[in-house]
């Protein structure tokens, strides 16, 4: 009772306090509600544009539609690079609940080695935007697809995607010329047009695939789709179809390429064949080759290392990057240079005692034939590959004019029009030597250059190009690989072609041709064995590139040297003389004298191109060459 009375006593005050406080509370409620309303007005009116854009970006996704890569054909329409449907393993990271568990399960299901998990993890990080699938693995096998399908419920976010994958039916023989495509790496990604390459996984890495990447790739299309928050496509809002890449028709003749590769089977070397009139490269082989298809899907580390460490250097494109001393193969070019500079005339005779001496010097520069060829004119100098003649010519011409004249033949420069990764090799000069060694040019060095030794280095492509110029009687045509892009015939006159070589007397070309012909048909010709039974007129020149220098008076026995220390055999040839259709350069590493291996191969190439006979019997040819090996003498 007491308590109650007390409470009653204060009721007035209680009510008053409650009134005031609830009024205050109401004011606060109104103020806070106004705050909310203000916030909403800010979002929905003031910032409406921002958010409507954001919600559109949310719902509308632009998906790239990658173009189909253009096919590559040889000059006769034979397929050299095609696209085959394959199946890729894709991962949408946002939809994966437990990444580690998923990756481990994948490695287990696909029966991959342990380190596969790391590679997967690496690739799963490569993504550009949320909900875009990352490529984990290409080229799944049927069995693997089946395993994945069975375990689909355990693998949210994992998808198998059908895709066209590059395939090279004749991978090995074309590996260097064609190059290959491979997965786009992070560096390349930084330089590519992100729009056009958004859906593309592969890019040309070397060769034609690289040089003509823009043409072959095509133009990416896109489609606008409405997606929900989980990235599922609900409907298509708009679409621009991709423009497929252009098909590329090469100047290469698959059969010639095949023959060249087979001719070099088991050897290290290169064969380049050009049609002189058009500059079309008929064959461009570097041996050994490799299976470029393995690079498309991503070669495993062990196999890649094995290729890299192979002493035969299968990954090295000798045809355009191999740098060899040209040896005597350049003698016809030097003869032209001598004629052009007025140092020699076709009739000038030089006496060869078996060596050449600079005035006031005791050092002897030897002819390959110890006792000398006696009286030698220009034609004979080419036929017998006389050194003394060219020592004299080089000495009289001097390095400056020699450099200028040989530059006109394309040496020391990249000569191809559309050849990716070509080396310029080296045409030495005074300036070059000063820049390289900070030393003056010594007269004796000119003498070495006169027989294609010393600092001079050429690529097989350069040799073939120079031979083509010779066959064209001085007219320059740039070697090229693309014959047609789509339906568009490629023009023959290409920009930045070197100036033609002009002789005062047109008939002098015939003299040089005659000397070159006698290499194969003359009684003293260095390649007369190869010339036996020729059905047409062929010009050629042998050459030997020393792998290491020998002392001045040393002779050597090739058999005594380890195989890899033997000289490289070189040969250049063109035929038929009256209207050359083919110019060939052949380099066979460590093969010994040039008149054996290299000349046979050059003739085989020429025969195949000029004669309508059935294919030459490579086996028989090889046997013949082995027999010849023993009976070779000199250059």
């Amino acid at each position, binding site marked *: 009772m007491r*308590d109650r009375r007390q409470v009653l006593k*204060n009721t007035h005050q*209680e009510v008053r306090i409650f*009134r005031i406080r609830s009024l205050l*509370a109401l004011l606060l409620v109104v103020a806070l509600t106004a705050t909310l309303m203000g916030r909403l007005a800010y*979002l*929905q009116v003031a910032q409406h544009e921002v958010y409507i854009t954001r*919600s559109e970006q949310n719902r509308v996704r632009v998906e790239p539609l990658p173009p189909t890569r253009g096919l590559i054909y040889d000059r006769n329409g034979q397929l050299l690079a095609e696209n085959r449907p394959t199946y890729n393993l894709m991962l949408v990271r946002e939809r994966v609940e437990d990444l580690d568990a998923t990756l481990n399960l994948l490695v287990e299901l696909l029966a991959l080695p342990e380190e596969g998990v790391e590679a997967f993890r690496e690739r799963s990080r490569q993504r550009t935007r949320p909900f875009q699938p990352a490529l984990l693995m290409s080229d799944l096998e049927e069995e693997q697809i089946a395993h994945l399908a069975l375990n689909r419920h355990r693998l949210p976010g994992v998808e198998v995607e059908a895709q066209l994958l590059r395939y090279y039916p004749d991978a090995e023989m074309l590996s260097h010329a064609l190059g290959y495509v491979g997965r786009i790496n992070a560096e390349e990604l930084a330089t590519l047009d992100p729009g056009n390459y958004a859906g593309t996984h592969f890019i040309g890495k070397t060769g034609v695939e690289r040089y003509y990447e823009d043409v072959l790739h095509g133009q990416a299309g896109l489609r606008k789709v409405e997606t929900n928050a989980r990235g599922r496509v609900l409907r298509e809002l708009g679409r621009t179809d991709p423009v497929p890449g252009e098909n590329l028709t090469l100047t290469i003749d698959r059969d010639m390429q095949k023959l060249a590769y087979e001719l070099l089977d088991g050897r290290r070397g290169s064969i380049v064949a050009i049609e002189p009139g058009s500059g079309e490269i008929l064959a461009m082989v570097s041996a050994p080759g490799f299976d470029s298809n393995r690079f498309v899907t991503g070669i495993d580390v062990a196999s890649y290392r094995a290729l890299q460490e192979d002493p035969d250097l299968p990954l090295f494109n000798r045809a355009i990057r191999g740098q060899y001393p040209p040896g005597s193969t350049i003698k016809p070019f030097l003869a032209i240079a001598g004629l052009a500079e007025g140092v020699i005339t076709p009739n000038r005779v030089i006496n060869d005692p078996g060596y050449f001496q600079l005035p006031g010097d005791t050092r002897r520069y030897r002819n390959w034939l110890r006792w000398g060829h006696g009286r030698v004119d220009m034609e004979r100098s080419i036929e017998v590959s006389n050194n003394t003649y060219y020592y004299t010519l080089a000495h009289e011409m001097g390095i400056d004019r020699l450099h200028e004249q040989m530059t006109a033949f394309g040496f020391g420069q990249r000569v191809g029009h559309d050849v990716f990764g070509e080396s310029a090799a080296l045409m030495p000069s005074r300036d070059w030597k000063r820049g390289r060694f900070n030393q003056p040019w010594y007269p004796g060095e000119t003498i070495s250059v006169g027989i294609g030794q010393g600092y001079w280095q050429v690529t097989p492509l350069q040799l073939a190009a120079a031979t083509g110029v010779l066959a064209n009687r001085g007219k320059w045509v740039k070697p090229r690989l693309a014959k047609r892009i789509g339906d568009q015939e490629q023009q023959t006159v290409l920009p930045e072609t070197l100036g033609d070589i002009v002789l005062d007397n047109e008939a002098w070309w015939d003299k040089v041709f005659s000397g070159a012909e006698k290499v194969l048909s003359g009684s003293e010709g260095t390649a007369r064995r190869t010339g036996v039974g020729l059905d047409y007129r062929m010009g050629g020149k042998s050459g030997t590139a020393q792998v290491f220098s020998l002392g001045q008076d040393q002779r050597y026995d090739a058999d005594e040297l380890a195989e890899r220390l033997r000289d490289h055999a070189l040969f250049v040839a063109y035929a038929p003389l009256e209207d050359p259709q083919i110019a060939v350069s052949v380099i066979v590493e460590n093969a010994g004298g040039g008149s054996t291996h290299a000349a046979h191969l050059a003739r085989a190439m020429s025969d195949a191109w000029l004669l309508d006979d059935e294919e030459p019997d490579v086996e028989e040819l090889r046997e013949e060459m082995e027999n010849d090996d023993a009976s070779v003498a000199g250059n």
Partner: protein
Amino acid sequence: MMLGDITRGLRGHPVRPPESGMSRRKSVWTKLRIDPWILLLLLVLMGAGLLVLYSASGQRLETVIAQATRFGLGLVVLMVLARLSPTTLLRWAPLLYGAALAMLIAVEVMGDMGMGAQRWLVIPGVVRFQPSELMKLAMPMMLAAYLCRRELPPKWTDLLVCGLIMAIPVLLIARQPDLGTSLLVICAAVFVILLAGLSWRFIAFLVALAGAALPLLWINMHNYQRQRVLTFLNPESDPLGAGWNIIQSTTAIGSGGLLGKGWLQGTQSQLEFLPERHTDFIVAVLGEEFGLVGMLVVLTLYLLVIVRGLWLANAAQDCFGRLLAGSIVLTFFIYVFVNVGMVSGILPVVGVPLPLVSYGGTSSVTLLAGFGILMSIHAHRRLLPR
């Protein structure tokens, strides 16, 4: 008896003369002890809520029916409670509070045995019940009942007792962990104390104490709770993770514009960019599909409920009813403010539903039960003069 007690207790007060015309016209409502204004507002809100829910649930009629069923249950509870006299509630207050506390402890013990967040009390096959919801009502009842037996404004000793009554359940709920519900229970309790006349000096002291306690709170927070605060401060810091909700909800609201994208036309909602869109974030669906106009209408409805509710509380003639009614109404506002504030990005993410719109069983029933109590307090005042 019961009635006698109250009659005696109120005899000394000026009793407002009954507005005879009104009461005659509204005799049906009076008999039912229902305030028609609040009921009407609540029904409109519930109807709007169901409309939005249909859209937010991805047009699943089952969800809407389930929610409507709960509303029906809630309205039954409302009517039953409205018929009870406040004195009954006053008597039951300690019992209810004790029962709620016991269940919270039970949940705590079971939670220790079970896993993670344990909020539910389950008697298999019979009922699934969240004791913290019961505490939302039991807490203000208990405090109002206690304070009304004391001299007001409350003294220090009273406040100490109040603090104890408040602290134990709040700590238990916060441990579950359920920040949203513990916040609402605290609010319900604090409103009772404030309305009871807590001195301004003490309020200032508490505010200062709360400020000082903030770092302590931070230390004791769960990682996910800290993450929420950090995300609130800068949602862009983790756009795909914790910030996702806020970014998507503000995007939904903002893209709605003045008039909205139209019912069922909200891309953020329909394409599932908006998370928890039929529960805590449902207001973003409302904002996206009905625009600023829709939002203002709904907020105005809530405001009207609160104005009417506070009016009823002021009309209550005993201390218990007054404090309880005031607390219920103001807590109702806290739901609205915290929820809309969170979804529109001016408050951190706290799990508080939008009353009568968000999908969720227990909270709808609790809310309607609260309004039942409010009506009982009001209706029984009117009965007296007769």
